[in-house]
């Protein structure tokens, strides 16, 4: 029973998902639209519970079991609660019940802490800087790891050189031939290779979707028990 019901649901809704593309009739289209805009949207909204819930549980367990760096879990939980309160009650454009700004006494500076300010001044710098580290890792990997160790890697590095040089605006304005060659590599061999890979990936993901609907692939069942 614990397996048969989910597998039946996944099959029924799998068929319901595919039909509207082939049947344009108004009845089917209206039903599909209604399903998507109300039922699917609400259920997916609740799925946030899974995401946020598992993060909260993960950090709680880390604190309870005093795993390594458990003190930092407090920061995540406190930050989550505070930003959720500011967002939920302060409102998206700071028009909610909770006041999200105050003027510093003796000055006319207004200190705002609404959700958009938190986003722009905490999330953007942290996330952007986290990813900008990659420039450094790229630099040291270029020096220590990127070797023409076999024929394939050699072809890859040669093609990369041409595209890398042409990606530099200074070079492409002095050597239009080079940027034309780089554009050729991108529009002809690269298109052929990526299209060939695309066929493989598309067939693979379709086979996986098919196996899920037909109940052959049951990994997603086991993973949640």
């Amino acid at each position: 029973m614990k397996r048969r019901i989910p597998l039946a649901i996944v099959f029924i809704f799998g068929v319901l998902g595919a039909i509207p593309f082939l049947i344009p009739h108004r009845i089917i289209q209206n039903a599909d639209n209604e399903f998507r805009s109300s039922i699917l949207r609400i259920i997916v909204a609740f799925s946030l519970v899974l995401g946020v819930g598992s993060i909260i549980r993960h950090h709680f367990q880390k604190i309870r079991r005093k795993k390594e760096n458990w003190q930092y879990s407090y920061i995540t939980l406190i930050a989550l609660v505070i930003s959720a309160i500011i967002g939920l009650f302060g409102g998206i454009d700071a028009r909610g019940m909770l006041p999200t700004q105050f003027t510093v006494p003796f000055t006319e500076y207004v200190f705002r802490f609404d959700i958009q300010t938190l986003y722009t001044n905490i999330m953007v710098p942290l996330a952007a800087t986290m990813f900008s580290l990659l420039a450094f890792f790229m630099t040291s990997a270029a020096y220590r790891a990127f070797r023409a160790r076999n024929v394939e890697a050699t072809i890859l590095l040669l093609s990369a050189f041409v595209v890398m040089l042409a990606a530099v605006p200074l070079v492409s304005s002095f050597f239009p031939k080079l940027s034309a060659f780089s554009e050729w590599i991108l529009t002809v061999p690269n298109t052929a290779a990526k299209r060939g890979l695309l066929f493989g990936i598309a067939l693979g993901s379709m086979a996986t979707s098919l196996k899920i609907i037909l109940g052959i692939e049951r990994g997603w069942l086991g993973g949640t028990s």
Partner: protein
Amino acid sequence: MITSILIVFTQLEIFRKISWKKNRFMKTTFLLIFLTGLSFAISPPTDVRAWDSPNDAGGSINIAWRISPDDPMLDGYEISRLAEGAADYEPIGFIGKTRNSYTDEETRDGVKYQYRVAAVKDTIMVYSEPSNYVQSSSQWFNTDRINVLVFATLFIFLILWFTSRAKKGMSLFIRKIAGLDAVEEAVGRATEMGRPILYIPGLSTMADVATIAGLNILGEVAKKTAQYDTKIIVPNRDPIVYTVAREVVKESYTQVGRPDAFNPDSVFFVTDSQFAFAAAVDGIMTREKPATNFFMGYFWAESLIIAETGASTGAIQIAGSDAVMQLPFFITACDYTLIGEELYAASAYLSREPLLLGALKGQDYGKAVIIGVLLAATLLALIANLPVLRLF
């Protein structure tokens, strides 16, 4: 057409001679004649026809006509509609010149409509003959998408056919994957040098096909390390993948008859943060100095850090991933790389698991179909010049 231009030209000449101030009445009457004269010059669009828009949910009718011979002079065309039982035509749309079709999307299904198109120049409108009667309706099957239905049924058949054969235990041939010889040789090297092997089953979750493939290959590698009594280190980023990985390694050790040699601490959970995990793995690589590193599964940008440190410690590195974005780094930083589907094929080849074998064979034949269609369509198009593209 030429006669109308001559008429217009002579009228202009006369008009110019009468100076405006002297005789206002004469001028205005002449202007009127002049303008109506123009209307004779415009001929209306012809052959107006209308039909229910195909493959739709109803409520729309297509109208087409042959543009008026005086088209370059026109401002455009106005389309008007006469509903069944309505008093008169009501204008429903205006469209620029040179255009010869329009779609009326506000029709009610089951009501008969008739259309006519007017050539418009400033205030002059010349109507065409009315079109045929037409009703809009919605269709139960979209005939444009038959090709999708054909390929879908074919593909479903292929997958089901091969999966059922695999389940019945019939042997499905898969060629040996070149990368797997490299695995054999790499484990042997680590044993000779008496140094550990590092195996990372990707950073993704159990729902990811690449993680499942990574764990299958981990099972095989663990069997070899059990036989040669080589130390194996398996750091994980996902708690669930960690528990499954430990079971896989334990199972491999017992299968080879060496359950006592299995050290539970060899498989461990590090952290779920992407870069902290990479930093921790770097620490292990520099401390333990493994002779061979395996990266089998799905990776993100942190693959750069891991592969780079591994290369600098001089270890042999074998990677396998379907993360297309990270493959270029693996290819240049590792000794051997399983590209995309080779990872799935390797895990199917090693595990002989019917589910993986069936799907892989089905996809292989899907590829054969695509290549076949490509070649056939191109040959037909080039040699017999058939309008092949309408098939797609």
